[in-house]
């Protein structure tokens, strides 16, 4: 954008006060905006999948209904896993700001474990549903359900792989500006997935089990 500018503020007669208004970390800012735009396009993917579920969510094809299938206790546990992983990632970012490599790595590890627990519980639920004969091919409702929740779970899985990659990067090179930038991108990705999950547990699970 603009070049660094230098100005002189007239203080007292002898004192000279300089200020430098520089575009510090311009590339970093550009990456953040670009990543935000990517997240917004990802948001559109989820919007279309939510729309599909909204349209097909009541087409049971004489098969099982959400009230038969969904166990809200498991969903509540799953939701708390993702919520806890969000705050622990926040702690990782705060440690990163203070340049504490050990604390950052520890919080990243805790975040990753919560993420693994989330994906594990979700896969367990999927396996359970398929064993009950309620697989994605059973009805339009189940196709839409597996596509939406599966896409979210896939995003979380990719996020976990990304998180592990960054833990190796931080271990090898420390909290250099590049790694900080990457951690900030993953932070946005991780919190964004939590935002999508709010829509999933409200719209897909809670609203569907209402009579």
């Amino acid at each position, binding site marked *: 954008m603009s070049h660094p500018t230098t100005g002189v503020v007239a203080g007292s007669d002898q004192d*000279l006060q300089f200020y430098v208004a520089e*575009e510090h970390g311009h590339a970093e*800012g550009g990456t953040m905006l670009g990543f*935000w735009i990517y997240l917004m396009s990802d*948001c*559109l993917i989820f*919007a279309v999948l*939510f729309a599909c579920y909204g349209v097909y969510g009541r087409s049971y094809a004489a098969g099982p209904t959400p009230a038969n299938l969904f166990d809200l206790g498991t969903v509540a546990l799953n939701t708390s896993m993702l919520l806890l992983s969000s705050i622990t990632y926040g*702690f990782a970012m705060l440690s990163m700001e203070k340049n504490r490599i050990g604390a950052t790595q520890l919080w990243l590890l805790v975040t990753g474990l919560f993420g693994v627990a989330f994906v594990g519980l979700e896969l367990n639920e999927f396996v359970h549903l398929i064993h009950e004969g309620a697989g994605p091919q059973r009805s339009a409702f189940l196709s839409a359900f597996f596509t939406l929740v599966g896409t979210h779970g896939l995003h979380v899985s990719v996020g976990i792989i990304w998180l592990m990659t960054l833990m190796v990067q931080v271990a090898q090179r420390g909290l250099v500006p590049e790694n900080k930038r990457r951690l900030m991108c993953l932070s946005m990705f991780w919190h964004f997935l939590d935002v999508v999950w709010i829509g999933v547990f409200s719209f897909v699970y809670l609203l569907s089990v*209402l009579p």
Partner: protein
Amino acid sequence: MSAADNSVHVQVLHDHNEAGHGSLKGYVTGFVCSVILTAVPFWLVMAHVFENTQVTAFLIMGLAVIQIVVHMVYFLHMNTQSEGGWTMLALIFTLVLVAIAIMGSLWIMYHLNANMQVMSVHDMGSMP
């Protein structure tokens, strides 16, 4: 005139990237709000608090919207200043598209279902 009188103050004005990390207070506030906003809808459904399901549905969607805003502010650190307002502009644009995609799909498909006739096996045989 001594050298001390000619003191030079250099102050560097960074842009607003520092604001992007949030604070401990912000994260904890967001987390507590999120826990409450998650627990209440689960409780409404699991404890069958209201007889009227429409009231429950309305409350669930309302609380979800509030929780999304809480996450946006406290976890994603959304504000109107970051990146010179471009993130907010992109978000508003996306929200408009999301609203069109979801509302439009539900609206159209609801009417298509309403217009659809129940078809007998005899009618199916005469389909083109």
